[in-house]
């Protein structure tokens, strides 16, 4: 079916369109320049805001970790139940919603592409099964490779090319999209009951430092030519004083830059921007990090904003999750994924009146407001670590309105309020900038050429919000902004209307984006044979893993709708 969206205010930052009234034409799931209007459904968007479909670069929505979170939290689900409707399935929600509800809720907010950022390679099959059950939105998932023994061994021995071969094989084997690094070296060290202290603290038995892992994988990323940068969760996350480690992490790959393209993405940066040396004198390091990011081109960030609510923290950073358990005394899960990584889950409640929590809330917003270029920082909550993704509209209203921030500031811990930088910041995001931090910037950082914009040839993923930018001043009318962004008037996915006024009207399956690096080693034999894999791999599988090599690789036919991105490897 053809669609034409008429008279909307278009915000399409990748094409430089800032609130102009234009028509958008859709044919066969793609945006096209023009066509005759025969057999065309017309959507009248006059007085409404039209943006590309939302892109979320970092949200934990699938996999064994999320699933354990679901098991751990019946009390999170019991008061948020969505009954079955004609075309939608029933489910439960809040901080770790069931897969179907995740898809519906993202679509209702106008999001059409989401990235699951932490997949232990061993759990890839499970992750893909859950991603398939997350309807409507397109998905990608990043395998955790920062503590994989092969990476540690090869980088220690200085074998960058061999490391790249293994990583490329793993990306293909797990149908992953980017290299995710969590607390590099720290997870392996956690196997011995410790954590790494800084970037130069060697990992036991391997003798390699986090700095070498980050630099090595950054080089590997350049060799394989992946569309996204390395996606880094820094060392010492959540510890007071860690902003220095974060700046060092960004700085340690600076010299590898050959082009203008960013090299490193620091994810949920708020959790890595603490100053001070204890929880008593912990304060914001956002200013220093923002200053660094403003002066360097090789870095992108996402916020990891905290919202005051009851949520579930989950990350591959096992040692940090153990600390969190000790701080909260709450129930917890901690797990070692053989050869590869670790993980942990702790339910957590962010309280307004807690000095530390209120400061964390402030840090997230400070980062977003102090980094001058919105193309360098994206809106996330590290769902569900900072807050569930359903709080995005609230965060948008904080970014767009000083008044909204002041209102929340009045209610938080007084010591945190006195130290917060927010009262001194009068910046307010425009709709154009919101479109960057919620879709265009994220699509650009992910290297997704057909997402995050409305130019000809792009996927027809479009969100239409019932808000008239000429009439509503978001600075004062932040409540209207929040309402509009929580319920898209239309969400269009691949040219089909999937949500209308917050109701799901169609439930198509989303695609799985994955990267298929053209590996010379893999190409020689038949398409799916492993005859040319690195020779040590098969033997080491026998020695180290509980899973056999032949059962590990996920064939493409396992994905319901596969969207491989072929890339040329620069061997």
């Amino acid at each position: 079916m053809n669609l034409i969206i008429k008279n909307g205010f278009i915000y399409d930052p990748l094409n430089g369109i800032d609130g102009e009234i234009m028509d958008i034409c859709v044919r066969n799931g793609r945006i096209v320049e023009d066509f005759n209007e025969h057999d065309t459904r017309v959507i009248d968007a006059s007085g409404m805001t039209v943006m590309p479909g939302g892109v979320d670069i970092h949200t934990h929505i699938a996999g064994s970790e999320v699933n354990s979170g679901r098991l751990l939290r019946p009390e999170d689900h019991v008061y948020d139940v969505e009954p079955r409707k004609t075309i939608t399935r029933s489910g439960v929600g809040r901080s770790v919603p069931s897969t179907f509800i995740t898809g519906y809720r993202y679509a209702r907010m106008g999001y059409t592409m989401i990235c699951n950022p932490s997949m232990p390679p061993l759990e890839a099959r499970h992750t893909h099964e859950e991603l398939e059950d997350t309807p409507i939105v397109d998905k990608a998932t990043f395998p955790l490779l920062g503590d994989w023994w092969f990476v540690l061994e090869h980088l220690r021995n200085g074998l960058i090319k061999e490391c790249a071969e293994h990583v490329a094989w793993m990306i293909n084997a797990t149908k992953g999209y980017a290299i995710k690094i969590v607390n590099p070296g720290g997870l392996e060290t956690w196997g011995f009951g410790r954590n790494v202290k800084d970037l130069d603290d060697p990992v036991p038995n391997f003798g390699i430092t986090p700095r070498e892992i980050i630099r090595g994988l950054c080089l590997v990323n350049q060799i394989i030519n992946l569309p996204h940068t390395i996606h880094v969760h820094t060392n010492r996350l959540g510890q007071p004083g860690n902003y220095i480690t974060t700046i060092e992490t960004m700085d340690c790959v600076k010299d590898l830059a050959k082009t203008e393209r960013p090299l490193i993405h620091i994810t949920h940066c708020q959790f890595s921007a603490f100053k001070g040396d204890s929880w008593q004198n912990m304060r914001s390091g956002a200013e220093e990090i923002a200053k660094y990011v403003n002066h360097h081109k090789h870095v992108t960030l996402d916020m990891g904003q905290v919202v005051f609510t009851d949520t579930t923290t989950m990350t591959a950073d096992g040692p940090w999750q153990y600390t969190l358990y000790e701080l909260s005394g709450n129930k917890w899960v901690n797990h070692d994924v053989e050869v590869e990584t670790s993980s942990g889950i702790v339910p957590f409640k962010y309280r307004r009146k807690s000095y530390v929590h209120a400061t964390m809330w402030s840090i997230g917003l400070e980062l977003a407001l102090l980094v001058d270029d919105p193309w360098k920082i994206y809106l996330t909550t590290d769902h569900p670590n900072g807050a569930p993704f359903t709080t995005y509209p609230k965060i948008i209203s904080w970014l767009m309105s000083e008044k909204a921030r002041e209102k929340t500031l009045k209610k938080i811990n007084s010591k945190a309020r006195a130290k917060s930088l927010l009262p001194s910041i009068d910046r307010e995001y425009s709709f154009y900038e919101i479109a960057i931090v919620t879709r265009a910037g994220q699509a650009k950082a992910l290297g997704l050429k057909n997402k995050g914009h409305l130019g000809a040839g792009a996927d027809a993923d479009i969100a239409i919000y019932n808000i008239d930018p000429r009439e509503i001043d978001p600075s004062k009318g932040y409540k209207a902004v929040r309402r509009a962004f929580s319920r898209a008037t239309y969400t269009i996915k691949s040219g089909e209307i999937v949500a209308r006024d917050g109701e799901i009207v169609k439930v198509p399956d989303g695609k799985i984006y994955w990267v298929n690096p053209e590996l010379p080693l893999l190409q020689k034999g038949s398409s799916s044979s492993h005859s040319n894999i690195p020779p040590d791999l098969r033997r080491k599988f026998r020695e180290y893993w509980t899973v056999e090599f032949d059962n590990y690789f996920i064939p493409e036919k396992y994905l319901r709708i596969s969207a491989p991105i072929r890339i040329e490897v620069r061997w």
Partner: protein
Amino acid sequence: MELRVWEGNKNRLLSDLFSVECEENAESDGLTITLRGNFSKVRRVGASMSKGKIIVKGDVGMHLGERMKGGEITVNGNADSWPGGGMEGGRIEIKGSAGDFVGAPYRGSIEGMKNGMIIVHGDAGREVGCSMRGGLIKIYGSVKHFVGISMRDGTILVRGNCAGKAGAEMLNGRIIICGYIPSILPTFTIDSIRPNVDVNGEKIPGPFYRFLGDMADNGEGKLFVSKNKNPHLTAYEKYLL
């Protein structure tokens, strides 16, 4: 009545399932709801209520008065599990017996009963006052295992017997058992013998052994156990200085 309720997975009108009669009463400031018949399969009666009165003439199902904030519920028959789950105020009186998890939060949560009072005239099941944070639970009959598990504050008074494992994981608060208990958890330590215990101004005559625990969680809870009904616990007395 236009009120909608769930029957299984179907959304129904309240008046489709029950015959409903209303009468104006100008005198009372809160509403009184009287339920007659067999309500033993009806759940969440009085959930989140903040004022008024509910009288159940018969049995009632699970989650009675769940998270209620105020008002009063009286049940003339028995109540199923989770009466007063996570309640924050008000009063529940059950003339018959109650099921498991009296005053306990939903499974997985640690936000137990915060305030208010639950009185059960008959027996109660397992995990009475689980994760309790305040308020008072009085059981006139006996209770099964794990009374006061994980409790942080508040008082549980059991007039009858207890099946055992009283106060496991408790961090603070008081449990008073006037009847027989087979044994005390090894993670409790005897502190003293008290002639009586004061519960909301009511003097409960003893004497009672006073234990402190749960030491496995560095708890400071107080467990009072009747001395006269538990002669097998006299061995503890040698640890008293």
